[in-house]
């Protein structure tokens, strides 16, 4: 028997306890990863491929104030500007929903492919969008959520204008950072509202990154001391501004994550020291047999490390699977449910009524969860399109692993200390 097998045998001797310890560590690490990803999505939205060359121009007062349409030719004339499109929030409530559940923006169809070049669209979408005044292009996530197809007519009642508009879906786009929006023609909006003079914001495509600072400054200067002063900034800066509006929620999520880590350390450390305390007598025997203290430490540390490590793999792995391979997560959960169902049959055969009942309960619950996750298919589906990306980054995985490693060490401290202090005789006398 090698040392490694000795340690492993020890760790799984009490299978139930090992499983429970691993699962409680896993639940906590899963939560930790989720919170870290959530916080990252809040504070650092992912960068879009084409964003480096885009400038967003809004009214200096706030995003809520419109801009006069006459600004467009002035911006277009600035050197380094390649394309300009209005980008106006419509605030439409879809069908009979209660509030706007996804965004609609009015823009200049001719400029779509120039300003948002990274978007991929269904074939013929650009041409149809330019020729059909009431046409709209809709993001794939939203199209999937509401089962909207090209050719459908969709209707919105605006929250900010006193109009309802019907759009004909002429295309579906994907491959951008936010595949949830509905894009339509600014002219259609102007005609419907009878107001041709105002837009929400300008989105400007700049020729090269070197031109960015000069273009931003030129736009800001062009409208200084006019009745509609603007603020031009890179798309990234614009996004980060949004993020800063979340205010104290970020701090709160950090606070919760800290408490979760603390709880995790506490609970797991207690279970693990329980595991060691239980076989105090054995450790005393090993001591009597001539094992050195540091060898005993190594046993304890390896076992605690192993349990934490397993928990980490299960918890982090499940988080990754659920958030980036959602369908597979559903399938895996289905398999676990099937295992419980098999167990149910076995227990039924052995006339273990109570056990069978509990296994059946577990199987049913897991199967329902598996079905839900599989049906939703993605993080966007799981959150009703509230979150659209949910990246478990290597950095976050690394951090969670580090927490697990620290946990392994901390959990082994108390039992190690007990081993140091106890004499062999005392240990041999211990009953439980």
């Amino acid at each position, binding site marked *: 028997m090698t040392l490694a097998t000795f340690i492993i045998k020890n760790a799984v001797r009490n299978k139930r306890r090992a499983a429970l*310890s691993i699962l*409680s560590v896993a639940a*906590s690490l899963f*939560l930790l990863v989720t919170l870290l990803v959530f916080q990252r999505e809040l504070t650092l939205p992912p960068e879009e491929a084409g964003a480096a060359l885009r400038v967003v121009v809004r009214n200096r007062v706030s995003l809520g104030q419109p801009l006069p349409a006459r600004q467009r030719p002035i911006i277009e004339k600035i050197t380094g500007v390649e394309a300009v499109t209005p980008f106006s929030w419509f605030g439409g409530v879809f069908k009979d929903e209660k509030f706007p559940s996804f965004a609609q923006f009015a823009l200049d169809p001719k400029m779509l492919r120039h300003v948002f070049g990274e978007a991929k669209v269904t074939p013929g979408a650009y041409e149809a969008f330019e020729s059909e005044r009431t046409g709209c292009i809709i993001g794939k996530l939203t199209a999937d959520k509401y089962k909207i197809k090209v050719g459908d007519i969709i209707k919105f009642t605006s929250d900010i204008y006193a109009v309802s508009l019907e759009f004909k879906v002429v295309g579906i786009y994907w491959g951008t950072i936010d595949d949830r929006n509905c894009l339509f023609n600014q002219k259609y909006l102007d005609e419907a509202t009878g107001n041709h003079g105002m837009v929400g914001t300008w989105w400007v495509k700049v020729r090269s990154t070197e031109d960015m600072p000069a273009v931003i400054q030129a736009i800001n200067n062009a409208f200084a001391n006019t009745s509609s002063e603007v603020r031009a900034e890179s798309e990234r800066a614009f996004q980060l501004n949004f993020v800063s509006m979340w205010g104290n929620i970020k701090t709160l999520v950090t606070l919760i994550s800290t408490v979760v880590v603390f*709880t995790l350390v506490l609970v797991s450390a207690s279970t693990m020291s329980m595991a060691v305390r*239980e076989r105090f007598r054995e450790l005393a025997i090993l001591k009597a047999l001539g094992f050195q203290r540091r060898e005993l430490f190594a046993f304890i540390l390896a076992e605690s490390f192993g349990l934490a490590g397993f928990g980490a793999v299960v918890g982090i792995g499940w988080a990754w699977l659920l958030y980036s391979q959602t369908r597979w997560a559903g399938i895996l959960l289905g398999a676990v449910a099937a295992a419980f169902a098999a167990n149910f049959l076995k227990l039924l055969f052995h006339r273990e009524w109570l056990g069978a009942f509990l296994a059946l309960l577990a199987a049913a619950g897991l199967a329902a969860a598996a079905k839900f996750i599989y049906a939703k298919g993605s993080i966007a589906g799981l959150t009703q399109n*509230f979150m659209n990306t949910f990246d478990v980054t290597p950095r976050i995985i690394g951090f969670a692993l580090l927490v697990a490693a620290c946990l392994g060490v901390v959990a082994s401290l108390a039992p190690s200390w007990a081993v140091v202090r106890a004499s062999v005789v005392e240990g041999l006398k211990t009953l439980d």
Partner: protein
Amino acid sequence: MALPIKYNVRNLVIRWRSTITTMLGVALVVAVYVLVQALAVGLEKASQNTGDPRNTIILRKGSTAESVSQITRAQYREILYLPQIARDQNGNPLVSADVIVLINLPRKQGRSEANVLVRGISPMGRFLRPQVRLVAGRWFVPGNREIVVSAKLAERFANFDIGSQIKTGGKLITVVGWLDGGDSAYDSECWMDADEARSLFDRENYSSVLLRVNGPEAALAISNRVDTDKRLSLRAMPETEYYSKQTMTAKPIKVLGGFLATVMSIGAIFAAMNTLYASVGARVREIGTLRVLGYRRRAILMSFIIEGALLSLAGGLLGGLLALPLHGYTTATIGLETFSETIFQFRITPALFAEGLLFSLIVGVIGSLLPAIRAARLPVIAALRAA
């Protein structure tokens, strides 16, 4: 016969080490749950504190919130002559046409910015909202480009001291006073004159009209009159009803709280199970003895479940107490309806506290169920012989 509860308490005390860690674990889970839900409750409370039952608010048909509604001056004039509107001693109708403008301003700390909601109010606006008090400085004088800001916002935004000037889009507005909204949504607002705000920010229309009515029948009559007038295309409702519907911001927080609670409680249940299994394992002979003394399996089962429930209830109580100091603590985030900085307080209501306790009780009962079944099923003879 049931085992005395004292037996469970003593057991918990004697195994104080694992009792304390399990209890702390449950306590932290409950504390997190209560705190997150306290945020949602606080947001809803701030909204509920805002409306006055005597007032009716009129918005454009189809608007979900005041900030996106528009009312033309012609519509306002029509509303002014509705007979059901209450009047003051001088016979002036108690009506305020408000305009809502968002302005983007720098925060005090760091370089970050956020939207602040500016409400332009008519002269009657203040009397319609008696819960708003001036706590420092004076009220604005129309025409002087003056503004009164919420004292709570003043703690968070730069240049909000009395006498300072706010610069927005090339315009300068002087802060002349601080208001206190009495923990209502008005704590997240700045007030100035409505018509001045309209000209300053190029707004042709008002956003909403707030009016006082003579009793509930008059309120009903007004909403019937306004809602059915096709030409007006407006909607009237009691102000309290309007604010009770402004709960969009609280929703995602509630979902987050529910998610946290579910996952953390699963972890806590596993941990509690572990503790109680160990506790059963260590007491095999004791359980055998109890059985010999005549206690039924049922009694043993119940006793262990009660022990688990006691353990986690104590944890839940501790967790609630841990969360309590944050009650009333002011915090802010973006309001999803107003799209501006929204100030609110953590609110730990008795109901929420009870919810936390119930939550810990569930964790305790589920966590102790399997170990208790195991204890109840121990064969007596083997248990007596156990080491």
